[in-house]
Every structure is written in structure tokens, then in C-alpha cells.
């Protein structure tokens, strides 16, 4: 009998599940036994692989994760939210949390935990699938061919835009100017962090003309290091390629919205994560 698997969705957006549905080659090769998005079943059975997406935001998330992990031979943390808390991490900023608890008091629904947690704060995954969302290829690799899987190095390498000598002096917002289709986005003054973001996505955003926001987390070299080191590496790239005031870059990469992606893995340097576990 084929090894079975389950998909447990905690607090997230279902984008990881939607991506999994675009990887269809598992049908008939591994049995899907639990995935409430597409399958009605009473409860989670014993499974070989438990894919967990989303972050632990509510007491129900915590309970369901613990219960499910007890029935699984291995747990795989899938996507940004499961790995680092993802976008919902922004809810943990002090000023936001005050609003949050003041305005969203409800009865008979799961309680919002004071702090949002990634999956590995609760259970130990054997594998991480980075990305917001992970690509269908990563799901296939996780389900079938982990050994020898080669992740793309960086988004920058996969992007294919031409680096030029031109040195912009001001930082563009994400939405402010016309984008040249051929030239590196940093040369055009955009805050692109593709130079140190893990590859494997084939750079769809930068190719379409939008700067990389780092949704796949750090490349191998930065996984076990602190987020501060990653930020500094990005700043160095801009210092080398642009005349944008260093303070502008320092502030921009630390804006909570960009940092929510950039923080992946690296923010948890206190609890070292094994580079070899990241697909």
C-alpha cells in the first residue's frame, strides 16, 4: 500500500493547499487521507507524512497540531506561516495587539493566543517547505524525492534581468515608477531582496516587474544566521550597486511589512534550524 499523507491547515490563507492542488502527479502514488479543504473525513488517521500549513494562532490550532502530530510518523512545516508565523506575525506587534484584543472579543470561538507561534515551536519537523506559497515542485519533492533535491540558489540567479552600471540615487516604492523590462530592479531603484532570497520559484515576481519581497526566506547561507546579518547583507548589495542613502535602505528592509518575509528562519536563530531540512 502506498504511503499515505495528511494536510493540516492551521491559521493561514489556504494558498499552500491551493499550490498542492496544482501538483497533481501524486494522485494514485500516495494516498491522501486527510485534507478538510477537499476531503470530508471524521478525523485524522495514522499517517506517514503530515503536512502542516499555517501558524499556531488560536488555542484550537495548538490542540489540533499536537493531536495530529501524535498520529504522524513525520511532520513537514509547509509555507511561510508554518515556518515563521508569516503575515499574521504582524498581529504580534504591541500596538496592533492592543487593538486586536480590544475589538475582537468573541464567545464560543477559539481563543487567540497571546503570541503567534511557528509549527516548530510545538513539534519538531523533519522538513521545511519554504515559500508563500511553496511551489508545486516542492510538494512533489517532499512527497517523493527528497534525497538529492537541489533547491535553486537565489531568486537573483533565476531572474535573468541584466545588471547595469547605472546607480540610482533614490529608493522607489513598490508602486511608483515605470519598470524597464530588461534591467535589474535594483539598478532601477527598487527594493528587491532577490539577491539573498532562496530560489526555486523561477523568479515570477521580478520577471513580471515586481521586486522580490523575500517570500521564500533566506538562501542557504543565511538560514542559520540572525535576521540582522541578512539585513546587513541586503544593505551591502545596495551600497555596492546604488547611491541610495544607506539609512533609507536600512529603514526599508526593517519595515514590518517587508520584514515579515525576510524574517523567515533567521529570526529563530536562537533555536538553530538545520539547513539540510530546508527543501
Amino acid at each position, binding site marked *: 500500500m502506498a504511503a499515505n499523507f495528511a494536510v493540516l491547515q492551521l491559521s493561514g490563507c489556504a494558498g499552500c493547499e491551493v499550490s498542492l492542488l496544482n501538483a497533481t502527479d501524486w494522485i494514485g502514488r500516495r494516498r491522501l487521507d486527510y485534507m478538510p479543504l477537499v476531503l470530508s473525513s471524521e478525523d485524522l488517521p495514522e499517517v506517514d507524512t503530515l503536512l502542516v500549513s499555517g501558524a499556531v494562532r488560536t488555542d484550537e490550532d495548538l490542540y489540533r497540531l499536537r493531536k495530529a502530530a501524535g498520529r504522524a510518523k513525520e511532520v513537514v512545516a509547509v509555507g511561510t506561516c508554518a515556518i515563521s508565523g508569516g503575515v499574521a506575525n504582524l498581529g504580534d506587534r504591541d500596538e496592533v495587539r492592543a487593538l486586536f484584543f480590544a475589538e475582537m472579543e468573541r464567545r464560543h*470561538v477559539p481563543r487567540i493566543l497571546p503570541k503567534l507561534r511557528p509549527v516548530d515551536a510545538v513539534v519538531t519537523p523533519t522538513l521545511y517547505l519554504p515559500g508563500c506559497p511553496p511551489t508545486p515542485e516542492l510538494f512533489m519533492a517532499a512527497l517523493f524525492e527528497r534525497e538529492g533535491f537541489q533547491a535553486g540558489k537565489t531568486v537573483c540567479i533565476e531572474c535573468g534581468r541584466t545588471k547595469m552600471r547605472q546607480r540610482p540615487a533614490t529608493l522607489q516604492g513598490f508602486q511608483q515608477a515605470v519598470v524597464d523590462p530588461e534591467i535589474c530592479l535594483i539598478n532601477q531603484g527598487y527594493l528587491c531582496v532577490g539577491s539573498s532570497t532562496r530560489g526555486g520559484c523561477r523568479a515570477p*515576481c521580478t520577471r*513580471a516587474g515586481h521586486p522580490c519581497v523575500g517570500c521564500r526566506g533566506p538562501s542557504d547561507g543565511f538560514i542559520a544566521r540572525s535576521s540582522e546579518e541578512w539585513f546587513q547583507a541586503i544593505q551591502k548589495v545596495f551600497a555596492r550597486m546604488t547611491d541610495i542613502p544607506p539609512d533609507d535602505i536600512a529603514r526599508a528592509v526593517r519595515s514590518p511589512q517587508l520584514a515579515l518575509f525576510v524574517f523567515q528562519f533567521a529570526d529563530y536563530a536562537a533555536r538553530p534550524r538545520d539547513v539540510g531540512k530546508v527543501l
Partner: protein
Amino acid sequence: MGTLTIPLSRIEGHAQVVIAFSGSTVLSAHFQATELRGFEFFVQGAPADQLPVIVPRICGVCSTAHHIAAVKALEHAYGVTPPERAVRIRELMMLGQLIQNQATSVFLFTMPDLPGATGLPSVFHFGAENADLAPKALQVRRAGTDLITGAGGQFIHPVRATVGGVTSGISREVAVALRAQLRDALPLAQELFERYWELFIGLKDRIGTLGDDEPTYYLASVEQGHAYYGDTIRVLAPDGHEDAVFPGCDYRLYLDEVPIETSYADGTLYKGQPMRANSLARLNMLPVLGTPIADEYMARFRAEWGYPAHAILLFDLARGIELVYCLERAIELLDDDLTSDPLRVAHAPRDGEGCGVVEAPRGPLIHHYVIEDGLVRRAKFVIPTQHNVFAIERALMVAARRYITEAGISPELERAVGRVVRAFDPCIACATH
């Protein structure tokens, strides 16, 4: 007094139904959304120009709709009008969004409810003689996600819409490949939908009802030939006449948002009454859709169930008709020039207020931002699923009364609850955001 808590599956996100009863009297039926991340709170203070990247993360199923609504809200605030060609590309993204969603809802979420005496757990459980169903359904769905990729950059959390237009066009080569893929998907979608329709009639004959069919208000932002790009919202009265037409930004004058004590999703009311959005609302507003094959289905649908049609399970068939329409419409639009300038107009960001509306799969989606010093001061997301919350609860009462009787609680109750909720295809990640 007894209480039944019924978990839900084959919908997006975490929700449950709680039915309270005393003997054979049903006291209440509540639809509870049980997750919350708090986007309205945590985008406060974000640079406004980052919202088109942040807010798609409200939902991986509906990310395209949020992406475009965000860009439209910023354009409204900045006073920018994008060029026609950029709008065309955004419409193609929305059509991809609808193809993906309707194929998922029709074939993966609701089709398993139809066969036999009890239905099936999933589309992967149809027997050997229907083994082709799941792969074909996923292929149709894939045509939608690939259309989003081609038009929007990536199929979840797309990036190509930008204030003033789009960051780049769709090359002729990509457009030709997408057309070919959609042309292949169209007959497959028809074949699957025919099988769906037949099973649907089988279900109707078995259970003897199509659910709550009380005439109701309907809400949508569509007109003939549309591509789910929104702007003007219309309300249809229960008897079929147009009750209101308003620009999306005036939503507060027409829609009342009501917090619900036992759910993380608010509901909306129109004139104090429940209303319905989503596929049936749109079909009830359009005499014809404007593409040949979809209009054949429309004629069949109208002949069978009249106009306006009110029974809730008809939402499912309506989604199938829309799937065909979107495939046909996307094939038409991909024939346009999608590469030449102008794809974008220049703009200067400014502080102020802006609203963006799109017709998302589940109905009108409104993003409303207040911007100060380039940062988001306040953000409001009015979510299509919220428009349906009270309609869902009313339909749940109808089902509960049918299956909780003097004879006891019928095992059909739980299946009926699943069918009722799935008819509205609620999206909980969106509804709670």
C-alpha cells in the same frame, strides 16, 4: 435543549455550524467562523504602496481579487485611471481567478455531495468508472491558475497589477499558449458539467428539495460582457426589480455590517434583511451572459428554474455556467493586443481615502483605505462571504427544520448542512481576515 456542532469541510478555512433545538423545535442555527488573523489591525502603519503585496495573503484562494482590489483602492485615492489595456490584463487575471475557483467549488467541493444515497468524501473517491473525473477537474482548474500566472506573474499572490496599470504586458507567445490551453479545457469543463448536472438532478429527486427558496435580495457588481472587474454595485429585489445601484465606495450608505458575537466573521444586511451574493446573484442580474455556450446553459437553467431563481442549491449550477462563461470570455480577451504601450500611466502618491471594488468569486469585494503620510491609517475589507452570512443561517434553519422532527434527528441533517454551506462557497480566511 440540545446542541449539535457540525464541523465543515470542502470549504475554504475553519468554520462550524451550531444548531440548538428543544424536542423537535429548532431554536437557532449559527454559522461560526473560528479563525482570525487581524489584517484590518496589522496593516495600520504599513506603507500604502505595499498593500497590493500584503493583502493577497488574506486568502490563497482569492488572492487575485484582493491584489486587484488593493490596487484599485490606491488608484482611487491617488486619482489615477489605468489605461484600457492594463484593465484588460487585470480582467484576464480575474477570469483566471474565477475559473480556478468555480472549477474547485463545482468539482472538488460540491460534486462529491451528489452521487448515491450518501455522497462521497471527495472527488478522489469516485469509483473506477469515474476515475477520469479528478484528473480532468484538476486540468480545468489548472487552466485557471495558469491564466493567473500568465496574466498576473504567479498564480497565488500575483504581482502584476500596479498603481496606474500593470508592470508588464502578456507576450503574444504566452497569450497564444494560454488560449490553446483554455480551448482544451473548455470541452472538458462542459463534459464534466454535463455529468454534474445529471447527478444534480439525481440528488434533487432523492432529497426532494433544492433548499431554502424564499425570494431574497441579491447583490453583485456585474453587467453584460463583464469580466469580474466590479465598480458599480447593484441590488436586485426579491421580485426581480433593481432596487439600488451605487458606486462601491458608497457601500456604507447601503450595507450594514453587523458583528456576530459567536463568530470571527461579521455579517452584512441590506435594509435590515439578509441578502445573497455569489454566482446565483450574478446570473439573476444578467439576462444573457454574452458567450455562446454559456448562454445555452443559461437558457436551459432559466427554462428549468425561472427568473429570478431562488433555491440555494442552484448556486452550484450557476457556478458551473460561470466556469464555461469565463473560459469563453478569456479566450476572447486573449486575442486582444496585450503587449503594446501604454500599459501604465505615471502618478504621484498622495494622502487621502480610496475604495476598490472587484466582483470576486463570492460577490462584491470592497477594499477601503485611509492614507496619511504614505502610511495606511485605517483599512476596511468588506468581504463577499460576509454578505452571505445571514442567508446561510436562514438556509440552515430551513434545513434543520426539515431534518429535526418528531421522528428525531435524521442522519441526512449533517449532509444537508454541508450542502447548504457549500452552496454559498464561503471563504473563511477572507471573511475573518
